[in-house]
């Protein structure tokens, strides 16, 4: 594989950039693989990469219905954080933060990880108390957390509405300074390129039509490019999880919902990190290009549409305007939607299933992007060793029937309750 560096850039400039190697090949599927990963998004590609890199399993295929990076890894708002209260979620995502910090070097691909901090705003004394509690829990798990008062917040985001007339005045906020953003599709491409160079086959435009299961054991997948035999199969399909589960006669604690995001026209730098509104569901950051990247609530009803509905955008931006009045003068550049695998407690599932050799990675709700490296890391471990890593030991499928829920926010799919 060609190494990307300033020298290769200069060298290729002399040939008008016509001779760059392809970043990943376009192979036809083999008859059989040791591991088939379904879903060529961030999580699937990261899983394939860590299978090859850490576990030395290179006879791996990643099969993708569309093109890699065309799903939620290219549709999210690129926020990376580990500001969780529960031990299982905090440890899992903090391990992920360590992977993020070295990701550009490790993948020889600039994922533009930019730890600019995230501030969750509080608008009441009760909310400040809740954030103090969450901040303390985070610090006990070794995660940086800072409780900010109103003046400290004002210093960091002076353009927010600090006037006396606002309905939800800013009392303060909880900040994780090490949180940030990254270039989302760069993450998918970086993992794909490295996985490909170690022998992983990335097969695009290959839809899964069914599974071959014999006496409780997975034998392979039936796809639009023929039958592919596999010793082990990993499901990494986010919003399509319920569709594939139905083909396996499985019912999961997951509902599929639509989440929208939008960006404004690019403007000069006004906002350094990520800010979330505490009195409604709205979050915002500014991209390197200057666009204000915004998101908020689910559309609120089961959906596979991958495109949104205007009442939700209006509702989300109402919250946005309450926080940042200057947004009213910006033009909206575009809005889009992605389909989310909403688990019933709001936390993900990385587990084995009742079918031998079939592994499940789902339930990411609207927070899958930040966990891309650690999800791939732990899922690769789970597949390679046929047992859970200690980091995903609590992210099991049976936690729902056993009552060990990870209800970080007490939300899950039932957003209409909040």
């Amino acid at each position, binding site marked *: 594989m060609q190494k990307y560096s300033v020298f290769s850039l200069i060298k290729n400039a002399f040939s008008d950039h016509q001779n760059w190697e392809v970043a990943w090949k376009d192979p036809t599927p083999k008859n059989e693989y040791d591991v088939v990963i379904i879903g060529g998004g961030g999580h699937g590609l990261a899983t394939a990469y860590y299978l090859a890199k850490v576990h030395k399993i290179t006879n791996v295929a990643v099969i993708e219905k569309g093109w890699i990076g065309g799903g939620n890894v290219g549709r999210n708002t690129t926020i990376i954080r580990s500001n969780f209260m529960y031990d299982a979620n905090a440890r899992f995502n903090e391990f992920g933060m360590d992977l993020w910090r070295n990701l550009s070097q490790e993948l020889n691909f600039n994922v533009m990880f930019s730890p600019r901090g995230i501030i969750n705003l509080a608008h009441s004394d009760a909310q400040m108390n809740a954030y103090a509690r969450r901040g303390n829990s985070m610090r006990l798990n070794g995660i940086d957390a800072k409780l900010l008062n109103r003046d400290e917040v004002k210093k960091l985001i002076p353009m927010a509405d600090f006037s006396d007339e606002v309905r939800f005045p800013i009392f303060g906020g909880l900040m994780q300074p090490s949180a940030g953003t990254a270039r989302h599709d760069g993450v998918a491409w970086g993992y794909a390129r490295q996985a490909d160079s170690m022998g992983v086959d990335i097969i695009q435009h290959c839809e899964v039509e069914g599974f071959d299961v014999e006496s409780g054991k997975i034998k392979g997948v039936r796809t639009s490019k023929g039958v592919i035999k596999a010793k082990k199969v990993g499901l990494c399909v986010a919003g399509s999880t319920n569709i594939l589960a139905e083909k396996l006669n499985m019912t999961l604690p997951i509902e599929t919902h639509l989440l929208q995001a939008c960006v404004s026209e690019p403007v000069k730098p006004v906002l350094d990190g990520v800010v979330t509104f505490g009195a409604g569901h709205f979050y915002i950051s500014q991209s390197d290009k200057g666009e204000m990247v915004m998101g908020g609530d689910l559309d609120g009803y089961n959906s596979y*549409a991958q495109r949104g509905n205007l009442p939700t955008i209006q509702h989300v931006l109402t919250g946005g305007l309450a926080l940042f009045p200057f947004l009213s003068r910006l033009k909206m550049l575009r809005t889009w939607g992605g389909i989310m695998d909403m688990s019933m407690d709001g936390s993900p599932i990385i587990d084995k299933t009742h079918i031998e050799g079939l592994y499940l990675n789902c339930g990411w709700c609207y927070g899958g992007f930040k966990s891309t490296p650690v999800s791939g890391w732990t899922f690769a471990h789970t597949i390679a060793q046929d047992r859970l890593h200690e980091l995903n030991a609590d992210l099991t499928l049976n936690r729902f029937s056993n009552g060990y829920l990870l209800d970080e926010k007490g939300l899950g799919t039932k957003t209409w309750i909040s």
Partner: protein
Amino acid sequence: MLHINCPFCGLRAQKEFAYGGDATVKRPEINKEVSKEEWDNFVYMRKSPRGKHIELWHHISGCRQWFKVQRDTATHEIFKTAKMSEEIV
């Protein structure tokens, strides 16, 4: 914006309604021994199909009645609405 035909008030805009989830989920009978699996299925497990889906909606800014809607989850086309006492086949 969805336009939902409330069985009591007629065609109204989505903003008047609140969503209530899968309408085909049945609560286990009260005066009966309920297994862990039955509770599990009732509380957590959902088919969430791509395509036709029978679901509950609440006309929260209208007549405040709950009713059933059959909707396509991929195209958002609404086929039928019915009162809670009625079945959608």
